[in-house]
């Protein structure tokens, strides 16, 4: 008898939880029609950032390459033409690729970068039909305009 009463009480209590949530604002988002906001320090796809004058920050030092635990990054450096430099200093990244399929979004590359060139943005919609399309090239990674990634293009570092 006591046992049965307890079971009824448990059911009522359980339904109470249901009832409580029934009248709350739902947490489900109707993705992709609606997009949930991400945390400020969320680590999504990478950007190669620019200075305000359009100069590339990346100097092709390959520190991100060596720190990357999943070996996702490939950089080939070259020497700047002093009359038409890509970056400040003698060296720039002639080629820069990140394999998004390998990346684990740890952010180590951002931390290792001595010039603040590589930052992980908030973009997480990274899918594709081929492997090749998920190897992001320098063109895809570089900001379309200074500040696109959210990083202040006036900041020195």
């Amino acid at each position, binding site marked *: 008898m006591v046992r049965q009463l307890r079971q009824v009480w448990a059911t009522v209590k359980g339904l109470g939880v249901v009832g409580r949530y029934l009248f709350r604002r739902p947490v489900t988002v109707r993705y992709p029609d609606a997009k949930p906001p991400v945390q400020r320090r969320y680590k999504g796809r990478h950007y190669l950032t620019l200075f305000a004058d359009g100069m590339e920050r990346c*100097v*092709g*030092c*390959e*520190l991100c*390459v*060596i720190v990357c635990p999943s070996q996702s990054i490939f950089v*080939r*450096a*070259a*020497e700047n033409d002093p009359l038409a430099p890509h970056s400040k*200093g*003698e*060296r720039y990244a002639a080629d820069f690729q990140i394999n998004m399929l390998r990346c684990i979004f740890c952010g180590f590359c951002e931390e290792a970068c*001595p*010039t603040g060139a590589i930052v992980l943005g908030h973009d997480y919609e990274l899918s594709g039909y081929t492997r090749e399309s998920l190897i992001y090239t320098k063109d895809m990674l570089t900001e379309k305009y200074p500040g696109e990634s959210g990083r202040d293009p006036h900041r020195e570092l």
Partner: protein
Amino acid sequence: MSSERAPASPAQMVHLTIDGRPVAVPKGTTVWQAARQNGIEVPVFCYHDRMPPLGACRMCLVEVEKMPKLATSCTLEAGEDMVVRTQTDRVRQAQQAILELLLVNHPLDCPICDKGGECPLQDNTLRFGPGQSRFVETKRQFRKHVRMGPVLVLDRERCILCWRCVRFGEIVAGDDALKGFERGYHSQIATPAMEPVRSKFIGNTMEICPVGALTSATYRFRSRPWDNRTVQSVCPHCGCGCATTLNVRGADLTRTRPREHPEVNDIWLCDKGFFGYEFVGSPERLRAPLVRRDGALREATWDEALGRVADALRSTSPEAVGVIGGARSTNEDDYLLLRLFRGVVGTNNIDFRVETAYPQPTSRAAWGLPVAIADVERADAIVLVGCDLTEEYPILWLRVKKAIDRGAPLVIAGAWEPEVARWAQHRLIHRRGGEAALLRALAGGVRAEDGAAASGAPAEAIRAAADTLRAAPRALVLAGEAALEQPGAERVLAALDELCAACHGAPLGILRGRGNSGGAQVLGLLPDMLPGYRPLGDPSAREAVAAVWGRPVPSAPGRTVRGMLEAARAADLEVLYVVGADPASDYPDARAWEEARRGLRCLVVHELFLTRTAEAADVVLPVLAYAEKTGTVANIEGRVQRQDQALLGPGVARSDAEIFVDLASRLGSPLAVASWEQVFAEIGRMIPGWAEGARLAPPRPGAGAGRDGAGIPDGPLPRPEGALALVAGRRLFDRGTMAARCPGVRGQAGEPFVAVHPEDAARLGLRDGMPCEVRSPRGALRLAVRVWAGVHRGHAYAPRGYDSAPVSVLLDERGPVAVTVRPLGAP
């Protein structure tokens, strides 16, 4: 003071304590070395164990009991009962202070510095440095980087003034390429007036610079240390066979570095070794076989190309087949060449000595060093006859320089003054053709005056040099191409024997041959030799070879390169098979080659590039370069070294060995070859002592072989009035098949030139840099004039190895040539 003490014997030990550990080291050891030998690390910057200590950087400070101040351990000799501490707070503070001061003016631009990741300054700062900078003022600034010629990039901001590079030039290379300028805060490393650096060894300063102040222009920004795979290899250029490490990133050969080999190159390389690697990745490399169809070379399949070669070989009698080359292949390739051509085809017309028209029989004058390279530095006197050492065998010069530093006199004889002449005690610059008389005078066989009259070298100098040599108990005589590449070579050899005998039986080295010539010689890629220096004429040697091959070896001696070309002219030779050689540019008579080519029915060439010879060929087979195959090579002292595959070849290129194996099957006698190791082992069955690292020294030239010709009078060459005797010499930096595709070498080589003595220049109206026409009875070349007092009067010096202006156009295989040099107006 030292006279009272017993002389320090190597067994005399001193005992001291380092970090509480008792250690015993031979007397004369420095505290730094003592610590290092006992596994205690003391950081250094200026000290380098191949040079005497200097004490400039103070990084190596240690605390020594009873010494009031910290002492530099690199300069402090270990003393009896010394108590040394390397880990105390005082030492740590001093290390931090030194590093902090070094970094005051250091730009710390590691992200864009090529040294990053392999930089002693980074490493020492991380381990011993303060970790924080207190310096907020502006740093000293220089123009960021300066290109000092085609290979060196100087960044003075990064220099920590350790003086290693300067001292390398003073002590090791002897070329004083880099110097310190200004004082104190403004001190900097440079060349006078910042002109391009002139050195054959500057790559080594990039290796020993502890920061990124001296970096390579060819490696610049191409890779990081962590990108590079390392592969052991051997330098393919001169015959020294320096041990190298190739750095490979993906499919890209990024740089060559020296690999320590105490017996060969120690830890050094010359700049051709450092920068002569880029030809491997050149887009001009041949990628597919070429076959002549309707008069033009067209791409073909291997099947078609090899089918054509096999048909030619099958339809020709063995005596009408000849093989030239082999000095650019591995020993295993060369051995299979022998099995194919001696065993299967059945010809002895095999000779690797493409660049000589006066070959001496190997039994009488084997090429190479009879002593080990490392023993050169132990000679008491060194005679260089017709050998431009830094141009031909640069790494040997570093050994000779060490001998000179020990007090050994250097005697130089030649038709021009080599770069190292300033280190010579006696310089005997003579007329070409006067070698034999000069050498006999040096030996005391004829009077100095007669030697002087016949050679043009001053009698006084000859006498003085002879006295110097007589006083040296263990001299070394080294003769080069310039002395022996002439019709009188027999007499020169006889005179060299006489000189060696007069020098208490000094060994005679014949410094000739490049790349794997040493291997080609020991394997017997020669018309009259079998593997292991056994003469072809010896029936038991032939039988021993036949037993391994299962096929007889033809007994009649074959033809030399010159003999093959003569036979081709007379249509006695129909098929010529050239393996990694360019006789059209390198055989010292271009016209003789052309005539021979016309007489050939079929010319087959193994090549990396479309050389002059390949352009004229019927079948061109693309082959792998040294970095693309594993195998062994041997150098001028006969040392066998292994090189590993670092890259895949271009297109469908194959190794020489694969081609020989394929041809043998097409000719119906397959060679069962599974791997290079198997071939290597088979060579071992034929040559006693054959092993990796072993040295198969060439037999001492002249031993037992009586040379005729002594006593034949010598004299100046007859030549028309106003003409100059042409002497052709080798340059380290040239523009040959491989070097022309290496920007670092090509850039240093500059344009081809002809050098004349200032007096001749004045007489002929020639000025430095002016274009001129050099004409010999055989042909003519357009060259730039270089006025140079180093060449003997009445002579014109032209470099070999420029494929765009091959000096062979002027040369005549029948004898020395005289040339007229005519100005072509101002540049």
